[in-house]
């Protein structure tokens, strides 16, 4: 079947089997390997991407469901030079250890800050709590998001 969608600003028309997930499409068809796969059940958040601005688990959506959608992955968030302010905040605040959960964490943080530019610590914990860091580096992640919130005025 044919699916037309926008990925990181580029509109694509792809022929895929109907059983293709958005995650398969990103990783296997488009070689966008920044989006990780792990639990395959919408629990862990390693495969988090933004679809029409909303955080979703790309493992739990069929390609047909994102027909016409605007998808943003970690590759699309990263500027041509340097890092996005949220990425920089994670670097500056030791917000990652092994790095496997990091693309999902950063995109979830982007969704949070787009929805709520000044979240409280409680709100950050509640929103980000659904994504899992198996290194258990949550204190660093929380620090990173709080730092990104403080910097929020300097970017859009």
């Amino acid at each position, binding site marked *: 079947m044919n699916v037309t969608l926008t990925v990181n600003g580029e509109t694509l028309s792809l022929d895929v089997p109907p*059983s293709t997930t958005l995650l398969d499409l990103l990783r296997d068809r488009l070689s966008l390997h920044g989006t990780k796969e792990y639990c*395959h059940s919408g629990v862990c*958040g390693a495969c988090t991407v933004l679809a029409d601005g909303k955080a979703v*688990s790309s*493992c739990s959506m*069929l390609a*047909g469901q994102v027909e016409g959608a605007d998808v943003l992955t970690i590759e699309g968030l990263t500027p041509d030079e340097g890092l996005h302010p949220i990425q920089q905040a994670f670097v500056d605040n030791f917000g990652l250890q092994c790095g496997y959960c990091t693309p999902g964490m950063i995109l979830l943080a982007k969704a949070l800050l787009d929805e709520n530019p000044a979240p409280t610590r409680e709100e950050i914990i509640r929103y980000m709590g*659904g994504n899992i860091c198996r290194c258990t580096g949550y204190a660093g992640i929380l620090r990173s998001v709080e730092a990104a919130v403080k910097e929020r005025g300097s970017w859009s």
Partner: protein
Amino acid sequence: MRPFEYIRPASVAEAVGVLNQRGEDAFVLGGGSAAVVMLRLGVVRPELVVDLGGIEEMRGLQRNGGLRIGALASIRSLELDDGVRAAYPLLAEAASQVANVRVRNVATVGGAVAYGEPQTDTPTALTASGAVVRIAGVSGERSVPLDGFYVGPYETVLEQGEIVAGIDVPEQQPHTGGAHVKFTVGSPENKPVANASALVTVDPSSGACTAARVVMGAAGPVPVVANVASGLVGGEASAERIKEVAAAAAEEADPIEDLRGPEWYKRRILRIVVERALTCALQRART
């Protein structure tokens, strides 16, 4: 994933038509957060996946005295909608506790209802709110109260070829308070060990309870209505009385032992969540 055909009908009529024609070969997909996992695991092995996501008439939340929820309304929309938060805080509170924000963004209210999973929050709160399921089939629409919609775990009264088109929630009486209390062991999928929704109406002059409804989730094969809650009506619903009702409600439940605990433990948790839900609902009804 095993291969399948895929269609995305544009109307309810088209969807039920193809479901009726293809019978057991077809599988319905709402938001996909449960359905795609079932497809991947091979729990279901359909020839055809019918994705309801493109049916415009099944979207949205409408206030018309009561609340008309389109089956495709996301759990997240129930959580965030200003009208729902003001008039049906119990539903918004329950929705806000489902899984994680990624799941809530795509999971649909109709899907949560039709899936019939016992370990979940939305059906508990909808049952407590007196919700009625609108079911569409080739021969038209019928309505079934949610209390009565479930036959067993993952089993509903839906016949072959029928889909959940929407859910209607009646208007709440003035001086009504609701609360949803969920207890988890902190496992990542955030499913409840047990939960309880309470909806209580009071007489503002005397403070006496005029209606009380409690529904327990993860407490049996289907959402369990605690009949004992009606015993609060007419009385002042003291803390002592609520404790007694909560203890009796836990005895009405039929929890199973699973990875979230043995039966005796779940009954103790049920007693606590029912007590907290009733206490909180009553406080909200009085303010």
